[in-house]
């Protein structure tokens, strides 16, 4: 059974979290994530959710508190955004290195200076190298579902997973969606059984110094687990489809696109929704275009992407994060993955939006219409 509801994105996420029964939640407010922890706080207050709710004094402590609770063997949750995620950076590395499972929801928002509370993906893209899996969601339904999938994958891999929603665009808009029954989720996601935990009856030391050779071996193992992550995630997504009748995969072709087209747009997150409208119209007008959504950014699904880009001549990557001095961060990932193809398509790097700059279907359509003018070497900023 799944119940229909019309919910704010943040509420949908809180409902997804609640269904996963975290024993500990740490919370610190930051726009546009705050509604998530507010809603969870109300759920705990009403007794609907049995969680230890820790109101910490900073994001650094928010992530550290769940570092402690997961080390002690309890499923946990936290959420953040922008400056807050940046503040967590040191502990994000520690978390993954400690091989601890967690789901963290990040509401994508720009980083200052200057101050900007609106959506772009610079915050989480800056955390690509911390060893976390990163999944980007297009809709609130996808976010709710992904939280459930992510706990399962995270606990199988013993790696933390960051689930991204675009701040405001998803967090602050209403959507009609389905909320699964608790029993359905309980059947899909069993209670967390920590293989190791802080337990006085079985005392172990966690995180002690490792000499260079041992450190290297541990990181090699880490990297091997990361390589298995897409398969584990795909299995969890397949099981989810079986139980909940909604399908997800690391790279998703959008049906609005023309699969046979030699040109494809690649983007990730909520902008995919706008791109769907743009591409449907372009195809109607004879400007044949395919549309690919990157859901998994870490580990980057290079095999899956190569498989769908094999016959393309031109890939246009729409970026919401910039690695200054190089260009769009997503473009770098796409280029690196497609390098392995024998016939490499041209990759146009387009900086479509930063700091919440509005993207309309017409914005995307104009990029496609004028594609011959795009540089294939440098990053293309909008005029």
């Amino acid at each position, binding site marked *: 059974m799944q119940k229909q509801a019309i919910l704010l994105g943040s509420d949908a996420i809180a409902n997804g979290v609640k269904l996963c029964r975290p024993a500990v939640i740490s919370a610190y407010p930051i726009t546009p994530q705050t509604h998530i922890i507010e809603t969870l706080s109300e759920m705990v207050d009403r007794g609907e959710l049995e969680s230890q709710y820790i109101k910490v004094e900073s994001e650094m402590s928010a992530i550290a508190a769940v570092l402690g609770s997961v080390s002690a063997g309890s499923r946990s949750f936290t959420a953040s955004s922008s400056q807050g995620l940046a503040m967590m950076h040191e502990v994000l590395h520690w978390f993954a290195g400690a091989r601890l499972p967690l789901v963290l929801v990040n509401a994508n928002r720009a980083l200052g200076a200057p101050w900007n509370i609106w959506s772009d993906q610079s915050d989480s893209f800056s955390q690509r190298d911390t060893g976390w899996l990163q999944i980007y969601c297009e809709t609130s339904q996808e976010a709710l579902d992904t939280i459930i999938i992510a706990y399962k994958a995270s606990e199988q891999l013993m790696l933390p997973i960051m689930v991204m929603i675009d701040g405001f665009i998803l967090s602050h808009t209403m959507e009609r969606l389905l909320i699964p029954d608790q029993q359905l989720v309980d059947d899909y996601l069993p209670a967390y059984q920590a293989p190791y935990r802080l*337990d006085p009856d079985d005392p172990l030391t966690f995180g002690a110094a490792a000499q260079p050779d041992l450190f290297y071996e541990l990181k090699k193992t880490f990297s091997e687990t990361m390589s298995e992550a897409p398969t584990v995630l795909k299995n969890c997504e397949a099981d989810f489809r079986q139980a909940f009748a909604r399908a997800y995969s690391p790279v998703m072709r959008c049906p609005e696109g023309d699969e046979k087209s030699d040109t494809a747009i690649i983007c990730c997150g909520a902008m995919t929704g706008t791109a769907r409208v743009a591409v449907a119209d372009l195809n109607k007008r004879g400007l044949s275009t395919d549309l690919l959504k990157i859901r998994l950014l870490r580990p980057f699904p290079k095999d899956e992407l190569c498989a769908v880009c094999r016959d393309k001549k031109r890939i246009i990557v729409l970026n919401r994060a910039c690695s200054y001095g190089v260009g769009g961060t997503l473009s770098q990932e796409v280029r690196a993955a497609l390098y392995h193809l024998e016939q490499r398509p041209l990759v146009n790097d387009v900086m479509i939006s930063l700091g919440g700059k509005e993207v309309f279907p017409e914005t995307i359509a104009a990029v496609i219409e004028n594609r011959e003018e795009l540089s294939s070497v440098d990053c293309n900023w909008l005029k």
Partner: protein
Amino acid sequence: MENDFSAAHAWQITSAEHMECGHMACPGCGASLSMRHTLKILGAQTVVVMPACCWAIIAGGQPTTALSVPLLHTPFAVAAAAASGVRRALTAQGKKDVQVLCWAGDGGTFDIGLQGISGAAERHEDMIYICYDNEAYMNTGIQQSSATPHGAWTTTTPGGKEFQYAKKDILAIIKAHNPSYLASATIAYPEDFYAKLNRAKAASGFRFIHLLAACPSGWKIDSQDALKVTRMAVDSGVFPLLEMDDKGRLQQTCKPENPISVKTYLQAQGRFKLMPENEIAAWQQEIS
């Protein structure tokens, strides 16, 4: 409430050890002796959380460990927050009788970790927070912290720490958070140390103990003199042994039998060699 050391309950040392041989501490390290006795008092049902500090090395590198209780290492600034999470998870699991001991140096307490401690104290997290204070960043090679007393040489105060920058009053800061237990102690006065650790163990909520722990290399003393010099810190009045009473006042628990001058304490250490006479006199004035 001066301690009555004739009372049998205040002063019993168990033969049980939760800190093992083969640890990495330097000879004469006050922090290692402090941990050994802290764990004798708290017992096996204890989880230790510690940030970067000397003890992160003393405990040993993989695959060895000096503690036979669970130990969680954390990044520098976040031990108190991580300990909060450990506590809440244990509570959620119904393990309310397990003590969570947050164990940090002065850098991790007075400086980089202070915000997280304030948060944990404000939330009245059920843990014992112990700062073993060796009065500088000893692990990184003796750099000044805000726990370094004025006049002391460190590698970043080559001429001695200027007199206007006195040691931060950590007890006053923690006291402002209304903790359920608050004291200063040192293993150089073991009867007082045992009495306080036992009282902290019996209490619940946020409990904070400030331990003075000698560092022979940082204080420029012989390792064999570590305990003697630490006792002199108490005897000179530089490090009074305090405990918060029921009314929230800090009371002296152990008055030195043979008081000495500040100058005598300072002269026993190489690190105060550059301190001018007038500043030593001013320090003496403050204490008297």
